[in-house]
């Protein structure tokens, strides 16, 4: 084995230009592999960060209260069917009993108790319809990272404070410290001070949402106890489909995975990942074909030498090991050079910080270059590529080969 490796190394160093060209070709393939990994991985993370990253991974929503029937049901057939209401009157009680159970589940990184509903924001004569989100102070950034989106003021929701989107602030000419009036759909209103302005970069949240503290929301919606919604964040958002049924079983509440609400997003992310796999597979295939053809050519050129080795007592297995070792060395060298080049080039791109709100850098993540995998796959691919030339060399008739 050691001697076969020596012969393989000598063959590679004897044809320096050919070997360099071959290693360069493999390195290019590896470079593409790494670049694609960093780009697709970064892009996926970017999309996740900007979409599902700000979503609740599991949501427990209070079930809508059935509207009261206007006529007694007994002895009569009810013909009127009314859509379930989503008004904030539906509440989740006794959260203190089940929230510790949810928090203890593996993979749960945080939860947010909320009271949500609709209302109107008024400033002077200006009135805008808004969604009111009541959050626990200190838990503002558990689901959407509100703190990172705040452009003015603070994300901390103090009693009597309200956080509004930048577009809404512009539309109503609002500024930090101003007092506005917020009226809920329950008809209760409160005078609140603008303590923060945020910009998420998407129309709905920036134009139509107002964040208040949970205590303020209780007042606005006349809910002295309970919440309307619990949002749960997971370490791995793809675990939501597994964890949601566990939470349902544990609490008896209707826990829903984000994938039920955003199936199209999930499909898009999976399609993107598959596209990445295909592109990387093509890069790998190019490497395999390149190495195989180069080694076939090299084997053909060295047929007389292989014949001599066989005549001197080298077995078929030895010949195979020599050729396969050449493939492995080319793969390893190409892999190392390609990985180094890939890392070097990726360094020139903006760091992951550019994924954040308000940044416009290319979403290339240097950490997702899959360097080790690229080197390993390339070496393995080159070994596989060398099997055909190796088998062909091992089957050579020494007499015919020497005669050539």
């Amino acid at each position: 084995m050691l001697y076969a490796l020596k012969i393989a190394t000598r063959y590679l160093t004897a044809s320096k230009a050919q070997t360099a060209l071959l290693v360069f070709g493999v390195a290019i393939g590896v470079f593409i592999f790494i670049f694609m990994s960093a780009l697709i991985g970064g892009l996926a993370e970017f999309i996740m960060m900007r979409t599902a990253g700000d979503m609740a991974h599991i949501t427990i929503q209070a079930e809508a209260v059935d509207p009261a029937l206007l006529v007694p049901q007994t002895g009569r057939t009810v013909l009127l069917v009314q859509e379930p209401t989503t008004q904030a009157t539906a509440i989740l009680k006794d959260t203190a009993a089940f929230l510790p159970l949810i928090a203890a589940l593996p993979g749960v990184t945080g939860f947010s108790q909320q009271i949500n509903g609709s209302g109107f924001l008024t400033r002077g004569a200006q009135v805008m319809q808004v969604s009111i989100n009541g959050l626990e102070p200190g838990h503002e950034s558990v689901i959407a990272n509100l703190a990172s989106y705040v452009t003015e003021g603070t994300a901390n929701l103090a009693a009597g404070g309200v956080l509004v989107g930048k577009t809404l602030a512009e539309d109503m000419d609002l500024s930090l410290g101003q007092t506005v009036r917020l009226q809920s759909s329950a008809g209760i209103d409160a005078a609140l001070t603008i303590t923060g302005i945020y910009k998420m970069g998407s129309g709905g949240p920036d134009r139509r949402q107002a964040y208040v503290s949970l205590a303020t929301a209780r007042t606005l919606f006349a809910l002295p106890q309970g919440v309307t919604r619990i949002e749960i964040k997971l370490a791995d958002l793809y675990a939501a489909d597994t964890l949601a049924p566990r939470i349902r079983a544990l609490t008896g509440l209707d826990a829903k995975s984000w994938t039920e609400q955003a199936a199209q997003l999930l499909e898009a992310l999976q399609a993107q990942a598959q596209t990445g796999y295909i592109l990387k597979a093509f890069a790998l295939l190019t490497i395999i074909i390149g190495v195989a053809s180069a080694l076939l050519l090299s084997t053909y050129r060295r047929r007389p030498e292989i014949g001599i080795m066989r005549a001197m007592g080298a077995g078929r297995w030895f010949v195979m090991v020599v050729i396969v070792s050449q493939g492995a060395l080319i793969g390893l060298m190409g892999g190392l050079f390609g990985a180094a080049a890939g890392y070097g080039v990726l360094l020139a791109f903006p760091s992951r910080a550019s994924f954040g709100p308000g940044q416009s850098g290319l979403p290339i993540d240097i950490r997702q270059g899959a360097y080790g995998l690229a080197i390993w796959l390339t070496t393995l691919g080159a070994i596989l590529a060398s099997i055909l030339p190796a088998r062909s060399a091992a089957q050579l008739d020494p007499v015919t080969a020497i005669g050539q």
Partner: protein
Amino acid sequence: MTVLLEVRDLVKTFGSGEAETRVLRGLNLAMQTGELAALLGPSGSGKSTLLTILGTLMHPTSGSHTMLGVDLTTANDRALTEFRNLHIGFVFQFHNLLPDFTALENVCFPTAVREGRETATARARGQELLVRMGLAERVHFPTANLSGGQKQRVAVARALMNRPELVLADEPTGNLDRASAAQVMDLIGEINHEEGTTFLISTHDEKIAALCRRQIVVGDGLVTG
């Protein structure tokens, strides 16, 4: 002297049907240990085919082939490769050295390929053979930098590396000038005399044949003299 090898009723045909060519037609031959024999015959007489079969590089179509008491006629490729490595050395007309290796590496090859590495013992033996071939100054030279005669002497040293009982030489001096040819033949004679290695040398050259103690003449696929 004991019988080293024996072939009986050796037949070798190439092709089939109308294109079939019968090169050996029931050839019989026995050689004793320590012989220095010349294999003579016109082109196409079957000399090279006989050497190839004796070198276990090719199976005969029929007949038997034994060497050192081992029946090689139906042995598989692995067994023949091992046997060849241990007991048979080759010297070709065009030296057939490995071009990307030094003289010493070429000489050590038959031992290194068996042992899986170039041992210090193998290197010492290789160096000793090269010194004996008059190539003490060329031990670490790439073979591409050697003259034709020097290359052929390296080839002789390589053939002797594993101390084989039989060395098959196919026109070993055919590509050399007179002086180099004489030098190579002197070395062969010396080794045959001192170590008792059997040599079978295929040649067209009557002068080379005359240096051998036995002349085996092949004609039309048979030993004729």
